[in-house]
């Protein structure tokens, strides 16, 4: 989505808390001097932490001298930002019109049931996140499911189980 504007960053895992904080701090120094840099800062923060926990949102509000409610408002407006930890793999079921008609809704229900988490949730072992997408531009493959960057076509509940098992 906004990947092209991101700075090249290391994967979210592995860094110590101090390193993460230092990297966030550097990101705020670089982009946080004007209000217009908020989305960029949030984006980098999410890259560093994997999601936007409350203390990160608070720190950004404090450092950029913006109301906490405004920063949180931006975070919760864009579906790209997540305030809950994300799993190692992100499963997105497309609910664009074509996918919806061809069974996307049933796939979402099935996924919620098998993973035991709601849309936007993450499994207890932090392996999978479950989300929906609003048309990924693969209508000819409907219903489509994306796991991380890979698109799977004409998915059925049974096929979805098989895809999931491969991770």
């Amino acid at each position: 989505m906004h990947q092209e504007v991101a700075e090249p960053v290391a994967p979210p895992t592995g860094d110590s808390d101090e390193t993460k904080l230092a990297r966030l701090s550097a990101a705020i120094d670089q982009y946080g001097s004007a209000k217009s840099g908020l989305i960029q800062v949030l984006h980098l923060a999410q890259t560093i932490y994997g999601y936007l926990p409350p203390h990160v949102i608070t720190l950004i509000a404090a450092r950029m001298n913006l109301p906490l409610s405004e920063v949180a408002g931006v975070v919760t407006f864009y579906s790209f930002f997540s305030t809950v930890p994300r799993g190692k793999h992100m499963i997105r079921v497309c609910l664009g019109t074509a996918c919806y008609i061809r069974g996307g809704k049933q796939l979402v229900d099935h996924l919620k049931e098998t993973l035991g988490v709601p849309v936007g949730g993450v499994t207890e072992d932090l392996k999978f996140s479950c989300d929906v997408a609003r048309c990924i531009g693969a209508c000819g493959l409907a219903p489509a499911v994306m796991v991380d960057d890979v698109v799977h076509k004409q998915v059925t509940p049974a096929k979805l189980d098989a895809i999931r098992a491969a991770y």
Partner: protein
Amino acid sequence: MVNLTINGKEVTAEAGATILETAKANDILIPTLCYLEGVHQAGACRVCVVEVEGARNLQASCMVPVRDGMVVQTNTKTVRKARQMLYELILSDHPADCLACLRNQNCELQRLGQRLGVSQSRFEGPAKHSILDISPSIYRDTSKCVLCRRCVTVCNQVQQVGILNAQNRGYQTVIGPAMNLSLSQVDCSYCGQCTTVCPVGALGETDAVSTVWRALDDPSKRTVVQVAPAIRAALGEEFGLPPGTLVTGKLASALRQIGFDDVFDTNFAADLTIMEEGTEFLGRVKAALTGGEQAVLPMITSCSPGWVKHIEHAFPSQIGHLSTCKSPHTMLGAVAKSFYAERIEADPKDMFVVSVMPCTAKKFEISRPEMANGGLPNVDAVLTTRELARMIKEAGIDFVGLEDSDFDAPLGLSSGAADIFGVTGGVMEAALRTVYEIVTGRELPFDQLHVKPIMGLEPIKEAAFTIEDPLDEYAFLDGIEVKVAVTSGLANADILMEQIAKGESPYLFIEVMGCPGGCISGGGQPRPTTPAIREKRLQAIYRADEAKTLRKSHENPYIQRLYDDYLGQPCGHLAHDLLHTHYTARGRFNELIADEPDPGCELFEPALGAQH
């Protein structure tokens, strides 16, 4: 100038004016919902749509500036149908419990429906995201919110506190603090300006009416009531009297009819505040000029609890600048439960002190642990102007027809200096009237005792004068220039605070009132407070002052007697115990800073996972 046609009528307007403003100036009324003159123009509700020739869609007239040659129609079938449809869509997720809503008959949404001729509600949407958040001062009921965003503008642009913002998106949108926190968990000042602009019942003061009725119905309670200066200049509006009508006498009568045992005037305590605050100020200046003691200057007034809470959050390291004086109504509460209790031989435990205030922040203020003496709160309940109006109606009192009466002695007599506590600049002027005279033995050298430069509704006002020929006791002030500043509204106060934080403040004394214009436009005052209404209330306050022969706090004989018989000296031991307080460095994220400021990182963990 721009020439255009509205409904076939040729009109002219200033360039930059909106269609809505231009139409209004030409007696063509366009219905609005979210629009708030001079404050909020967001085009959020679309109710003000009109047809503009050549435009593809209907245009929100509050947003679109007039152009030369524009042809506007405000009353066509398309426009009427669109407005009705918009209204029905707003109703689709609005609870239909009008009859049991506090805003019934005083609701802008209700009035709008009537005006648009809507007689049906065809759509039923999913119920709105419902959060009921009750803080000591303000309640939020998001199920009633119509997302007009007036409160967002007032909170972020006018007051610049930024507590309320839109969270989430689409149907999930809710106006509120960050991360589903409640108002009492964040740095809300409780100024209540949001409650005065809410068109519906989504934001309002937290109820004290039922508590007060309970006390009134309890025969073992001695109920003492007091009213702030700004009430008398605004309460009449709730009963259809024109803005700016002074209803002091009717107010006292109404309170007596409601059943209060003692009807006192917070004005009395305003005079008392001047004695204490004036003495404190002179003490600080003396310490600064004669060396030795450390003195924090400028001193800042502490009458406005919204302001006090704001400085505790936003400038925690500067709270030493606040006067240690309690606010006037808590002073009166403290005096009522000590001096007056002794006098009438009542047990202060059996007394119930009610303050009628133009303010929502005072509701929180009375719950502060430091606003208590001998284990009893100084004040037991705070009613806003709006709540008192409700009680008067509930009691079946014909307010407009009431005879005038006076407040009770001894805590009911006050000077004109106390009246002007209700308006920006008033506390400073009242203080100067007394302090100048104490220092020089002469009357403040201004026409009618009014310090003109600090009167009026400008955001930041200042005045300066040089002390010449002081009394011997104050010889250290000879030739000293006293520079003072007055401001109202939290955004303006922040400007003066930044100056102080940088060590660049040129002032010795600053008056701050948390609400723009002062208490006359407080968060508990009748809705609406427009610039015109604010001005009328201001004039009424000055009329009340000028109508009194007693114009200076230190000349109030009851104040003099209170010191002689009971308190001793201003800022003396007993006065300090009863009338002064201290403050809490809360910090921006409510981290309650003890000594060292904390970056406030790990604060909101409990609220985790509230979104989506």
